[in-house]
């Protein structure tokens, strides 16, 4: 087994991780805003009317909902916060993989854009799990989240928070760097063969 090309690629990816994380952390507040906008779109589809607006402080997003809650004898709107970094760090992994594959900037930017819906998904499900599960049945009922929808939210949240943040960058890399992968691993042509075989 010739492991050298894969090992060389892995080493390059490891070396690129540090500068990639630094770059990601530097742009994280703006990145959070864009991912928050995608979360807004997801929520408009998954729970229409639930979200009024999204505000950002640093890398923390505040989801201002239309749900009414009592606050010191008065009534206010529920605001739920979510840290964006845990959903957007995959950008650093993606950058490291793309740089290790010596991909052109055009593809890197395309891939970074490709990741945004996945990051938005994680943030959207973060809000839904807070509203539909963590804050109790009263809030969940007010949001219209009950029965199978709560189960779907739990699964969607697990996928969006545990798997997608680190897996989506690898899939985006594989899609955008297919010629590189086939050069690295000739058998990767089997991914095409599998479609016809």
């Amino acid at each position: 087994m010739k492991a050298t090309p894969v090992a060389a690629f892995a080493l390059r990816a490891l070396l690129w991780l540090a500068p990639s994380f630094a770059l990601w952390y530097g742009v994280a507040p703006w990145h959070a805003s864009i991912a928050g906008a995608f979360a807004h779109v997801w929520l408009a589809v998954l729970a229409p009317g639930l979200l009024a607006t999204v505000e950002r402080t640093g890398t923390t997003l505040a989801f201002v909902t239309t749900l009414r809650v009592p606050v010191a004898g008065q009534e206010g709107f529920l605001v739920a916060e979510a840290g964006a970094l845990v959903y957007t760090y995959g950008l650093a992994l993606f950058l490291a993989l793309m740089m290790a594959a010596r991909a052109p900037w055009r593809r890197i930017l395309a891939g970074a854009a490709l990741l945004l819906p996945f990051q938005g998904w994680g943030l959207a499900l973060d809000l839904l799990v807070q509203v539909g599960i963590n804050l109790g049945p009263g809030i969940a009922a007010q949001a219209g989240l009950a029965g199978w929808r709560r189960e779907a939210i739990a699964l969607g949240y697990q996928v969006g928070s545990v798997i997608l943040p680190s897996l989506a960058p690898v899939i985006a890399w594989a899609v955008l760097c297919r010629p590189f992968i086939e050069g690295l691993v000739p058998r990767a042509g089997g991914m095409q063969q599998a479609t016809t075989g």
Partner: protein
Amino acid sequence: MGRFLASFVAILVGLFALELTPPLQVALVAPWTAGLAWLSATLAAAVDPHVLATGKVLRSTTNGFAISIEAGCNGIEAAIVLIAAMLAFRAPWKHRLLGIAAGLAAVQLLNVVRVISLFYLGQWSFAAFEWAHLYLWQALIMLDVLVVWLLWLRALPPQAALAP
């Protein structure tokens, strides 16, 4: 690649949903996580006798610092990703099973390193622990899965991709 990706995602979501069911949590995930904590404590105890594992919790008996191994950190999700990637790729079953066995060993080995490193990193600096726990190690584990999968692809016989 579209068919491969569709198979991969279908197997991935199926296995992940299965993992989240209460019976599997009780029968597999909880004992596995406790075993991981025990193994990590046993290895760490070779150089540090003040490490104790209780269930899924790893604790220092000197300063009381403790970490609890939760979903996403027990290596099961990474294993599911690797299994899905190997099952979705057309290859002889013998190679799939060998790949899964060797791949899981590689992923779990690195995961033990992750747990032990986080345990000591947390005692040194909580900020560094948070960074390594939430971002760095997640990326490293997925990179490990990717490299194992690429190595497995290289190890397949030339006709493997076309095998029935």
